[in-house]
């Protein structure tokens, strides 16, 4: 039976006075006549690492995209640290926020894409400093200093003046991670970030992400097929199917002794 009413607070990730980092409330998302998410409710605590697994079309990527405001909510609310992201409640009515208000909250969220999406007309370092300068208002020197530091952490300090087209997929993805981290986000969304990579390049990217997980307390929402990585990094795994959470729990439990049949079948297919 789908468990939609989930407090979602794991010990060790106490929320800020009880306010979860992320809260999905009665979220509905329809694409035309297809309902992908139907009254979805879940929370994510501060610093929590949650992996979403499930068959394609189950809604996992949609959740990330809704959080990043790349898709519009059909109904429901998304709260970030208790603040409304795109819609708020005013006098009992559901009100859409103006884009400036949305931008304020969205700044706390960063995303790394499956297709990297680096800006091809800019060098690596320019890609990383673009948003810090024009969104966070940092000075060029300060942004550059931070960028070089981040690029060093992801192992690309020798390619800072290269253009994305000169880099391998794995290198581009690492730049993408640095670019997202340069905004100092509270929440990092990872949308199948290794699915488009050649197998030999996957390890380097996962190493960078494990580094991020270990050395920061950033909240992470991860969609991935890399089950080992999920097990290494996650505090909680949520199994999705047809827009509902079928099962969730600690990765050790979910991966070894799942309760539900569908979870078991899915894991058998991918593991």
């Amino acid at each position, binding site marked *: 039976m789908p468990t939609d009413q989930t407090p979602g607070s794991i010990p060790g990730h106490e929320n800020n006075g009880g306010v979860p980092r992320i809260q999905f409330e009665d979220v509905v998302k329809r694409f035309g006549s297809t309902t992908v998410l139907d009254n979805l409710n879940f929370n994510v605590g501060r610093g929590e690492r949650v992996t979403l697994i499930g068959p394609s079309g189950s809604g996992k990527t949609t959740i990330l995209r809704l959080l990043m405001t790349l898709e519009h909510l059909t109904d429901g609310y998304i709260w970030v640290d208790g603040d409304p992201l795109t819609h708020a409640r005013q006098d009992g009515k559901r009100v859409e926020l103006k884009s400036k208000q949305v931008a304020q909250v969205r700044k706390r969220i960063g995303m790394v894409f499956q297709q990297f999406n680096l800006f091809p*007309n800019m060098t690596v370092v320019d890609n990383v400093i673009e948003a810090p300068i024009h969104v966070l208002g940092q000075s060029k020197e300060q942004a550059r200093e931070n960028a070089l530091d981040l690029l060093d952490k992801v192992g690309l300090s020798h390619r800072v003046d290269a253009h994305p087209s000169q880099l391998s997929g794995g290198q581009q993805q690492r730049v993408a991670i640095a670019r997202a981290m340069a905004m100092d986000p509270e929440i990092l969304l990872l949308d199948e970030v290794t699915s488009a990579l050649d197998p030999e390049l996957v390890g380097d990217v996962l190493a960078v992400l494990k580094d991020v997980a270990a050395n920061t307390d950033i909240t992470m929402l991860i969609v991935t097929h890399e089950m080992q990585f999920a097990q290494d990094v996650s505090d909680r795994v949520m199994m999705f199917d047809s827009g509902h959470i079928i099962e969730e729990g600690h990765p050790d439990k979910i991966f070894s002794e799942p309760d539900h049949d569908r979870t078991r079948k899915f894991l058998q297919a991918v593991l």
Partner: protein
Amino acid sequence: MWDTSLFIETLPVLIGAFLKITLVVTVLSSILSALLGLVWAIALRELPAWAAAPLRFVLDFIRMTPLPVHLLVIYYAFNNLSPMTVGVLVFGVHYSTYMAESYRAGIDSIRKGQWEAATALSLPASRTWRAVILPQAIRNTLPSLGNWAIAMFKDTPFLIFISVPEMVTEARQFGGQHFSYVEAMTVAGLLFLVASYPTAVLMRKLEKKLAY
């Protein structure tokens, strides 16, 4: 039949008109239409539907009606403007409607992920256009803009309609004065060919080089 001395005599006249009128109009109009075309493309994309629709209609109307008629109406309606000025303005606006389509194609061909990355970084719209979209779109569109400039160049003889002494007008006049048209027309044709063909080839090469 063919008089080589006439051929030689006509060369400086036609080359002069080519340089002073044809090239000048082509260059100035191309710049105008490239700039205007970008304005239309962004406007059609960013304006609300009630404003974009009439703009689209006006641009389509201009694009689907003949250039000579546009030249004539502006020439007669604003007879304080010099014919050259009318020519540059009309060519500029007329071809801007084609170039707007080219820009549209160039902007549309930018992968959705670029827009999404800009959203993910919370880049404001103005910055997204200036730093991410336009540099890529213009790069995509440049070869097509070049091809349209070449087409415009071949349409400059339409300036005959408003009495601009461009190259083909001069050729016809020369032919009439010397009772033989073949030399002057051949020179005119050759000048067009020599100017447009290598440029077209260059545009194709440029297209291949510019692909990311």
